[in-house]
């Protein structure tokens, strides 16, 4: 893990030194880049707000628990332990929510148990699909259903395989 903490400072140092050698006005250039940050966030905000309010309603209304309940027999059939069903369903919606869930699962079942390892792999091999779609396609004239469904299906397949790999590796 040590190399990773060195990577970022070295990356910035290397690029800034190279730019200075190339006679780039560092202060001006950096500020010019930052200028793009505010319009970008402004253009994302309305769609993120709508999506996050929706996912909060989904979670707090109990709809998410209901759906988890319906799906967990199907999950067991596919070899996904019911203990991690909620994590698998949460991951596409919320990064922080699923991080909290993973930590809870590791605490309850033990990090080195099969459930713990399975949950770790399921978390690590999938992404927050709805969050990424809200950010990447915010306000564009784009059909988002195809890429979102494809990614959800692919991630789900990844989770099934993660449970298999955890058993045999």
């Amino acid at each position, binding site marked *: *893990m040590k190399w990773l903490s060195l990577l970022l400072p070295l990356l910035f140092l290397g*690029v*800034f030194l*190279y*730019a200075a050698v*190339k006679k780039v006005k*560092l202060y001006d*250039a*950096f500020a010019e*880049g*930052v200028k*793009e*940050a505010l*319009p*970008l*966030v402004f253009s*994302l905000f309305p769609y*993120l*707000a709508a*999506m*996050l309010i*929706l996912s909060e*309603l*989904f979670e*707090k*209304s*109990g*709809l998410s628990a*209901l759906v988890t309940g319906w799906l967990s027999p199907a999950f067991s059939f596919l070899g996904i332990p019911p203990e991690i069903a909620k994590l698998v369903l949460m991951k596409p919606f919320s990064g922080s929510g699923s*991080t909290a869930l993973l930590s809870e699962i*590791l605490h309850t079942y033990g*990090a*080195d148990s099969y459930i*713990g*390892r399975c949950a*770790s*792999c399921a*978390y*690590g*091999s*999938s*992404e927050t699909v709805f969050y*990424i779609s809200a950010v*990447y*396609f915010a306000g*564009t*004239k*784009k*059909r988002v*259903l*195809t*890429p979102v469904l*494809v990614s959800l299906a*692919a*991630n789900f397949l*990844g*989770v099934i395989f993660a449970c298999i*790999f*955890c058993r045999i*590796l």
Partner: protein
Amino acid sequence: MFPTPSKRHILGGQSIKSSMNAIFAGVFAAATVLFLFLDPDGFLPAMLSGGEKAALLCLDLLAVYCVWLGFFKVLEKSGLAEKISRLFSPLAKKLFRTDDSEAIYCAGSNLSANMLGLPGAPTPLGIKATRRFLDTGNERAADLLFVLNATSLQLLPTTVIALRIAEGSAAPMDVFLPTLLSTLVSTLAGVLLLSLVHAVRRKG
């Protein structure tokens, strides 16, 4: 070198395709009916907490963009960005079927920042590449970039390993290989499935 977001994107509210509108309406209605019967007083607090999350997330994003967009502008002005994009271009040209060097640079850097797990860096690059692809009518490339991002490319699952250490794991790195293999499965499946969908759509 970076495209600024065009007006069309910023004002695109009414033009989001019906699929998203249908999902929004359906989930909203189902959740609201549940609230009505189970916990009518919890309805407004839940919505407000969603709004609060959006506001906080935007602040977080703004902080992240300040750092990375500043960094990327320096990278661009130094001429390094062009060198990097030239490095990527043979592969990216095949992958995304485009000659647009800006899109290639953004998409290529997005993917490599993703693999390295640089916190926050992939997002602004991914947005820029996506907008660039859509502006030039390259919907397939935008879909592909999204699927690659949304099926996780990260080589080292840093968050997972940190959490496992925190929970007292004896072998925190034990999940490295199975995670890498299942990520490979999901990414390959995503790309194959997407090509299949696009192939069927072209025929139909």
